[in-house]
C-alpha cells in the first residue's frame, strides 16, 4: 500500500480475530471481494500489525483506530454521513523503529444498519487505523471494510396478501400470496384465481423488483431493479381457473427490506404480477412484500 511517497516507510495490516469468521462475497464495480461478516451485536476484535522496514523509523504523535459506519451517496461524492464513529487510542506519541502489533477490541457497539451496496447508495462499515506522523503532510492511514448483517426476529403478525383486482368487464382476478413478510430463504406460495377473463391472455409472470430510494425532495432517486421474471402461466385460462404460484427466494441476491436507513435511503421489494395479452399489452399489479433476515 502506498501513500504519497512514504510507501516504503511502513506497511499496515488489520487482522480480525476468529480467522474462521464467515466471509461474504460482495460484488462491487465488477470485482468480487470477500469481506468478513459481523452481526450487529458482535464484538469487533483483532490486531493491527505495523511493519517497519529495517533502518526506518517513524516519529508520531499517536496511533488511533476508528470504527466507522457511514452512508455514501454516489451522486454526492465526498459527502459521507457517519452514523457511527468510535475511536480507540492505540499508542501515544512515540517513535516506531521496529514492527509492532496493537490488539484492539470494540465491544458493545450497536451496528444497527446492514451493510448495503446499492445502485445509488452504499452503507459501509470499516476500521481506520491512523498514525499521526510528525512533520509530515499526511498521516499514515489504513482502512479495512467489514460487512454487517442484522438478524431479525420472526414478525409476529404476518398476514397473507389477498386482493381482488381487475379491469371492468374485461378481466377480474383475485390473487393471494401466503404471507406479507418473507425471510430471505423463504418461498412465496400463492395462487391466482380468474373470476372473469374476456381478454386473450398469452401468459402471466411474476416479477421480483427491488426499489432503492435515496435522497428526498427534488433529489429523490428511485432505482427499480427486476431481480427475476418468473413465468407462472402459459396460455389463456378459462373463468374459474386457479393458477398456483411458487417462487423460491433463496436463489436471488436479496437483502432485507430497509424502510428508512438513517433518513438517507430505503430498499423495498415488490412482487409484480404481470399478465400479457396476445397484442402484448401488459396488465400488472404491484404488491410490496417485506423481506427479513432470519436468525
Amino acid at each position, binding site marked *: 500500500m502506498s501513500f504519497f511517497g512514504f510507501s516504503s516507510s511502513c506497511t499496515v495490516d488489520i487482522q480480525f480475530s476468529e480467522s474462521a469468521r464467515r466471509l461474504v462475497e460482495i460484488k462491487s464495480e465488477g470485482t468480487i471481494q470477500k469481506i468478513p461478516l459481523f452481526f450487529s451485536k458482535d464484538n469487533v476484535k483483532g490486531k493491527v500489525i505495523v511493519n517497519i522496514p529495517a533502518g526506518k523509523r517513524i516519529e508520531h504523535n499517536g496511533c488511533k483506530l476508528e470504527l466507522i459506519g457511514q452512508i455514501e451517496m454516489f451522486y454526492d461524492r465526498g459527502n459521507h454521513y457517519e452514523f457511527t464513529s468510535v475511536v480507540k487510542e492505540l499508542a501515544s506519541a512515540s517513535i516506531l523503529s521496529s514492527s509492532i502489533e496493537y490488539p484492539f477490541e470494540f465491544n458493545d457497539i450497536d451496528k444497527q444498519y446492514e451493510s448495503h451496496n446499492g445502485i445509488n447508495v452504499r452503507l459501509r462499515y470499516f476500521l481506520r487505523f491512523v498514525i499521526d506522523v510528525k512533520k509530515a503532510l499526511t498521516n499514515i492511514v489504513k482502512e479495512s471494510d467489514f460487512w454487517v448483517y442484522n438478524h431479525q426476529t420472526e414478525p409476529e403478525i404476518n398476514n397473507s396478501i389477498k386482493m381482488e383486482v381487475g379491469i371492468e368487464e374485461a378481466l377480474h382476478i383475485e390473487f393471494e400470496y401466503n404471507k406479507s413478510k418473507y425471510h430471505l430463504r423463504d418461498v412465496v406460495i400463492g395462487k391466482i384465481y380468474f373470476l372473469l377473463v374476456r381478454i386473450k391472455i398469452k*401468459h402471466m409472470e411474476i416479477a421480483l423488483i427491488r426499489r432503492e430510494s435515496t435522497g428526498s425532495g427534488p433529489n429523490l432517486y428511485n432505482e427499480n431493479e427486476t431481480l*427475476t*421474471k*418468473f*413465468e*407462472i*402461466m*402459459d*396460455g*389463456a*385460462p*378459462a373463468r374459474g*381457473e*386457479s*393458477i*398456483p404460484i*411458487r417462487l*423460491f427466494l433463496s*436463489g436471488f441476491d436479496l437483502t432485507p427490506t430497509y424502510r428508512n436507513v438513517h433518513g438517507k435511503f430505503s430498499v423495498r421489494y415488490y412482487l409484480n404480477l404481470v399478465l400479457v395479452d396476445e397484442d402484448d399489452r401488459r396488465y400488472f399489479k404491484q404488491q410490496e412484500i417485506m423481506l427479513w433476515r432470519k436468525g
Partner: protein
Amino acid sequence: MSKNNRNSVANVIAVEDEQLKLLNDAKTKVTAEAFQMKRCLDNNKLMDALKHASNLIGQLRTNLLSPKNYYALYISSCDELRHLESYLFEEKKRGERINKLYELVQYAGNILPRMYLLITVGSVYIKSKEAPAKDILKDLVEMCRGVQHPTRGLFLRNYLSEMTKDKLPDVAHEIEGNGGSVKDSIDFILQNFTEMNKLWVRMQHQGLAKDKEKREIERQELRLLVGKNLARLSQLDSVNAEQYSKIVLPRILEQIVNCKDQIAQQYLMECIIQVFPDEFHLITLEKILQTCSQLVNSVDFKIIIITLSDRLANFGARSPSEIPEGDAVFNQIFNYATKLIEQKQKTPNEDILAIQVSILGLAIRCYQKQFNLAGQVLGYSLNFLNDLQLKEASALKQPKIIKQIVSLLMLPIDSYRNANTVLNLENYAAIMNFLNFETKRKIAIALLNSAIDFRTKFSEIEQVNLLMNFISPLFKDEEENQSNNIIDPDQIEEEQTLLAKVIHLYSNPDPEILFLLYFTTRKYFGQSKPANLKYILPPLIFAVLPITSKILQGEDSEKKVQKIFKFILETILALAKNKYSELALRLFLQATYVANICRFETICYEFITQALTIYEEEISDSKAQLAAITLVMSTLEKVDCFDTENYETLLSKCALYCGKLLKKSDQTRAIGVFSHLLWKENYRDGKKVLDCLKKALRIADSCMEYGTNLHLFVEILNLYIFYFSKKNETITTAYISSLVDLIKTNMANKEQEHDEGFAKFFQNTIEHIRQITLS
C-alpha cells in the same frame, strides 16, 4: 377448378411445407441440446445438463406447429429426457438426495421447461421414497395448472401421466403404504383427467370460426391423450366395483356432463364403456344410462347405447352366471333407450332400429330362456315400423332401414339356432311383412338353413303352420312380384331342395300326428307354383309312405291307412296333372309296392292302373317307354296281393305294351322281362314262359342289325339257362344247345365283326352252362 380453389390448394401445400420445416428445425435444436446435455451428464455437470435440458424443452414452447407435428416433437423431446431421468436415478442410487434437485429445477424462469424438469425429477423423487408418493403426485398435478395452453397443457399432462404410471400407489405395489393408497392414485388420475379434458374442450373455442372443421379434426387427433387417463384408472388393480361406482365413475361422469362438448362427451362415454370391465358396468348401468340423457343434443346416443348393449350381450354370452337374475339389466337398457328415443325427437329412423337390434342381441344372448324379452324388443320395433308405414311409407324402401329390419330378423336365427324358437318369438313373423319379396325369400332361406344345419325338429302342427307361413315366399308368389319373377333356375333348384330337406325334419312318435304334419304341409305346397312341385311333392310322398305300415300296427287302422293312400293318390295325381308323367308313374309304382306290403289289393290295383294309364297316355318316347314298362313289370313281379283274374288282366296289358314297343330289340328285351311275371311264387306257368322266350327269339331273329341280333340271342340264351336252373321243365337242354349252335354259326359267318365285349359275354355264358350241367 376455380382459381380460388387452386390458390387454396397451393396454400395448403405451402402450409404443410412450412410445418415440416418448422418441425425439422425444432428437432435439430432438440438433438443439439440433447447432445450437450448428455455430454454434461457424462462429465457429471448436472447444473449445465439441466440448463441444456431446459433449452431442449424450450422447443416445445412453440405456438406454430399443428398438433400432429407437435406430437412428433414431443416424442423426440421425451426420448431425450429419458437420459436425464436415468442419470438422476443413478444419482439417487448413489445416495444423492433428490429433494434439493426438486427445488432447484423450480428456479427455471419459463414454466414449460420448469414443469417438464419438475416431473422428470419428481418421478425419481417418488422412487427415492424421500417423500410420500402421494404428496409428490399431488404437487405435480397441481403445479401443471400453470400451463393453460391447450396443446402444450395436454402434452405436458400426458408426460406427467406417462412418467408416473408405474409409480402410483396401488395394492401390491412397492409404493403403497406410506407412499399413499389407491385413493390417492384415483384422485391424481381423476384430477389430471379433468384438467386435460377441460383443455381439450377449450381447443374448440379458440381460433376463428371458419377453422372449425380443421379444429375438430385436430381435436380428434388428440383425444387419445385424454382417454388414456381412463385406461390408467382401469389399470389400477385395487379399484373394486364399489370404489368404481362410488368414487371413480361419478367424477368422470360429472366432468363429461359439465364439459358440454359433443366431441368429448361422445368419445369419453364410449371410452368408459370400452376400458372398464363388464362387471362394473352391470353395477353402474343406471348411472351411465342416466348420463346419456344429460349429454348435449348433438351427441349420438345411439352409438353409446349400442356399444354398451353389445358389450353386455357378449359378456352375458361368455359368462351367463354373471348377469343378475330376473330382467333388470335388460329393462334398464330397454327403458332408457326408448325414453331417449322419445326425448330426442330427431333420432333417425335407422338409428332407432339399430338400437333395437343391439338390445335384441342383449335380450337373446343374456337371457337365453326369457323369450318374452326378445318379443318385447320385436314388439317395439313392430309398432315403430307400423307407425313409420303410416307416416312415411317410402322410408321403408330405404336400404339403411331394410338393413336394420333384416338384422332384426337374422339375429334370432343366428343366435338361437333353433327355427322353432325363432318362429315362436312374439311379433317376429309380423316384422317380415315390412320387407320386399326378394328380401323375404333371403330371410326364409336363412331360417331353413338354420333348421337344417342345427336339425330342428318340427313335431307340432302349430310349428308347421308357423314355419310354412314364414317360408311361403319360397313356394308362393306374391302379387307384387308376379310380373317380374325372373329367378335363376339353379337358384330355384337350390331353394326348393331346402324345402325338400326341411320335410325330413318332421318327427313325432305318433304316426297319425306325423301324417297330419305332412298333410298340413301339403296344403301349403298346394299354393306352390306348378314348376316347383317336382321338387317338393316327391319327398312328401316318400315321407308319408312308410307311415302306412306304422299305423297298421295300431288298432282300427284300415280307414286311416286308406285315407293316407288317398292322400298319396291325390298328391301323385297333382304331379301327373302338371305333366310330370314319368315322375308320377314311378311314384305310383312305389305306392303300389307299399300298398302291396299293406295288403290293400284294391288300392294296389288302383295305383298300378294309374301307372299304366300314365304309360298309355303320356309316355311316347321309345326309350322312356322301355324304361317305364320295365319298371312296371319289375314292380308287378314284387307284388303278390292280386287275385289271378286281376293279375292276368295286368299281364295281358303288359304283354300288349311289350309288343307295341317301337324297336325290335326293345320288344325282345321287354318280353324277356315279361317272362319273369310268368314264373313267380304265386303264378307259375312253364309253358307260357317257353312261348314267351320263343317269341323273344323270333323277334330277335327278325332284328336286322348283326351285332344287336347276336347280343339279343345271348341274352335270351341266358334266360333259357335261368329257367332251366329254376327247374322249368318245359325248358330242355335241347333248346339250350340248339340256341348255342345258332349263335356259334352266326358268329362263324361274320367272325370278323363281333367285338371283344360280346365274345367275353358269350364265353362267360358258355362257362355258366358248363357249371350248371356239371352240378
